[in-house]
């Protein structure tokens, strides 16, 4: 399936141009407004005058999803009115947890008959996908996949099956995850937070560090090659071993797994290795952001410089932003050495 559009909301703004700029700029200091350093999305990023009325009741989580989905649609150049069959798949690790916990707090504070119906509707995991569907006036299938580790990969597989069976001509496939106070607390208790604010994707450590992030990415996937084309997503699989020899591996190492030693195996393939978690932050659905980076690299035929080159195992890292002949990129996520996922992208 063809990658015909990308929309993104992340710590440094909104839109594929902002993301490209961030990839070129590299690391920036995370925000330190909460209890941990983190890559938060600013409130100003989540406003859009053209969508004010339609997003009036949407919470932060849904706003991130709506804005990135709308941008992916616009980026694709696909005419909304002529869009015959559009599917929507939203992947998330934790859903709108901030609203969910706020709703539960309200029940405790005010009683179960005295809680906001809007807050209740936003606390449902499918709310964000429903906002996207309603705003795009979509009549195709809409699904939310909630899974900790491989939500985006499973979303891609579902999107691929809808396109393959002819159910949809296009699928908006994306992810969204937010960093609320509860999540901040969970990260603080469960993860090794990088106090200096630097994720180290190429340390391949058994005690990796993280800087939590939040945001949303939507990819417009199409059956046919469209006006805008980033390349093709040819396979998403969970193999025991990685086969093939891509021009570039993009790895999801970001400190969200307890152990990242499994990535050491990638070194033996001899291909270039990159990973961009220091740009957008650590999150379980970070795969979608790396996917967007890979698609952008295929389209532009540019490999972006990796941030933080602490490279104790001598991996062949992408050490400068430069033109490269990129025909195939594998996006790899390894949770434990025996659990791998590959998303294959081709020019």
């Amino acid at each position, binding site marked *: 399936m063809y990658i015909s559009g990308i929309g993104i909301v992340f710590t440094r703004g909104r839109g594929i141009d902002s993301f490209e700029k961030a990839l070129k700029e590299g690391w920036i200091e995370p925000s330190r407004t909460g209890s941990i350093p983190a890559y938060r999305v600013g409130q100003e990023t989540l406003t859009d005058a053209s969508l*004010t009325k339609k997003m*009036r009741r949407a919470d932060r989580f849904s706003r991130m999803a709506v804005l990135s989905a709308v941008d992916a649609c616009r980026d694709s150049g696909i005419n909304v009115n002529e869009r015959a069959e559009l599917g929507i798949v939203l992947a998330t690790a934790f859903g709108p947890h901030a609203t969910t916990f706020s709703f539960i707090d309200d029940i405790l504070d*005010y009683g179960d008959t005295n809680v*906001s*119906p809007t807050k209740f*509707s936003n606390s449902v995991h499918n709310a964000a996908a429903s906002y996207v569907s309603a705003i795009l006036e979509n009549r195709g299938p809409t699904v939310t996949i909630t899974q900790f580790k491989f939500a985006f990969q499973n979303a891609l597989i579902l999107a691929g099956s809808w396109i393959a069976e002819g159910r949809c001509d296009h699928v908006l496939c994306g992810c969204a995850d937010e960093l609320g106070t509860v999540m901040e607390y969970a990260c603080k208790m469960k993860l090794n937070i990088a106090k200096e604010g630097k994720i180290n994707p190429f340390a391949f450590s058994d005690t990796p560090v993280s800087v939590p992030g939040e945001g949303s990415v939507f990819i417009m996937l199409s059956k046919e090659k469209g006006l805008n084309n980033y390349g093709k997503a040819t396979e998403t699989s969970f193999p025991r071993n990685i086969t093939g020899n891509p021009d570039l591996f993009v790895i999801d190492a970001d400190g969200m797994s307890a152990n990242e030693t499994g990535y050491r195996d990638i070194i033996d393939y001899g291909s270039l290795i990159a990973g961009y978690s220091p740009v957008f932050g650590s999150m379980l659905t970070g795969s979608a952001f790396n996917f967007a980076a890979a698609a952008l690299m295929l389209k532009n035929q540019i490999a972006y410089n990796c941030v933080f080159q602490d490279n104790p195992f001598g991996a062949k890292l992408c050490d400068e932003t430069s033109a490269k002949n990129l025909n195939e990129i594998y996006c790899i996520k390894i949770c434990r050495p025996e659990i791998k996922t590959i998303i294959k992208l081709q020019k």
Partner: protein
Amino acid sequence: MESKEKNLAEIRKLLKELLVENLSLEDIRPEDIKDDEVLFGDGLGLDSLDAVEIVVLLQRNFGLEVKDMKQGREIFYSVDTLARYIYVNKKTT
């Protein structure tokens, strides 16, 4: 009488702030809402879900319950009718 009008004015001001905040009326400032502006339909453009939010808002902030929907239509007509309902019922409770 002067005291009543002063109280009503305070309630209206508070109500407008609560409506903007609780109904996420991002593009409207509290002072933009007229006292007698129709809240639903052609006026401020609120809908049925907003009506339930206002019921919750009245319960939480003023301890008032509106259960009779016929009565609710009259009470929810404008900020002014809401304020008068709050003023009268808070006085008697």
